[in-house]
C-alpha cells in the first residue's frame, strides 16, 4: 500500500479566508482524488485531480470554490476558497494505481479536519 500524508492535519479558519491542503504520496500513482466527509456522514467525491490538466469536478463542486492542482504523479493540492462555516468538514486525499502494485485498490490519506468560524 501507499503512505499518504496530508498537511495540515487540522485547522481552524475564519470565514472568507482560503486554505490549501497538500497531499503527498510516497510512490507514483495513476489517479488522485479529493473527498469531503462532513461530521458523521459518508464520503463525497469532490473531484479527480488530473496531472497536467484541469481537475474533473463532480456535480455540486466547482473550480472557483475548490481549485485543485496536480503537478506530478505524487503530489496534489486542494484549496477551499472563501470559506464559510458550511465548509467545516474532513477533506480526504485518495489515490489509486500505485506503481508496481497492479491493482485498482483505492487508498486514503489521514484527512484534514477543517473548522470554519
Amino acid at each position, binding site marked *: 500500500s501507499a503512505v499518504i500524508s496530508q498537511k495540515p492535519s487540522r485547522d481552524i479558519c475564519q470565514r472568507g479566508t482560503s486554505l490549501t491542503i497538500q497531499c503527498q504520496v510516497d510512490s507514483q500513482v495513476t489517479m488522485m482524488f479529493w473527498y469531503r466527509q462532513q461530521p458523521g*456522514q*459518508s*464520503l463525497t467525491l469532490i473531484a479527480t485531480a488530473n496531472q497536467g490538466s484541469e481537475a474533473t469536478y463532480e456535480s455540486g463542486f466547482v473550480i472557483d470554490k475548490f481549485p485543485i492542482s496536480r503537478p506530478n504523479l505524487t503530489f496534489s493540492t486542494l484549496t477551499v476558497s472563501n470559506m464559510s462555516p458550511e465548509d467545516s468538514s474532513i477533506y480526504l486525499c485518495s489515490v489509486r494505481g500505485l506503481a508496481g502494485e497492479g491493482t*485498482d485498490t*483505492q487508498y*486514503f490519506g489521514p*484527512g484534514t479536519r477543517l473548522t470554519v468560524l
Partner: protein
Amino acid sequence: GESVGLHLPTLSVQEGDNSIINCAYSNSASDYFIWYKQESGKGPQFIIDIRSNMDKRQGQRVTVLLNKTVKHLSLQIAATQPGDSAVYFCAEAFRANSKLTFGKGITLSVRP
C-alpha cells in the same frame, strides 16, 4: 453475531463473537465492491474488495459475501476484537477503475 442493515447505523457485539455488517447497494450494473474501516480521527482503511464474478472472498479474519440477485453485500468479521471498533463503509463502482460510490456507514462497537 448480529447483522444490521443500513437503517440501523450501530452494531454492538461481544468481544469474541462474529460480526456481520450488511450493505444494500444501488446499481445492478456495479462490478466492483469494497469495504473500508474508519477509526476515529483517521482516514478510511482498505479491508477487502470483491468483483461481481465472485460470490465470496476471504481475507485475514474477514469474509466478504456478494449476492447480486438482491444487490446485497456483507462483511463478516470472525472473533471480533476491541480493535475492530470503527465505522465501516461499503462502496461500489461500475468498474474496478471507475469512481466509488460510498454507503452511509455503520458503526461497530465491541463490548469487552
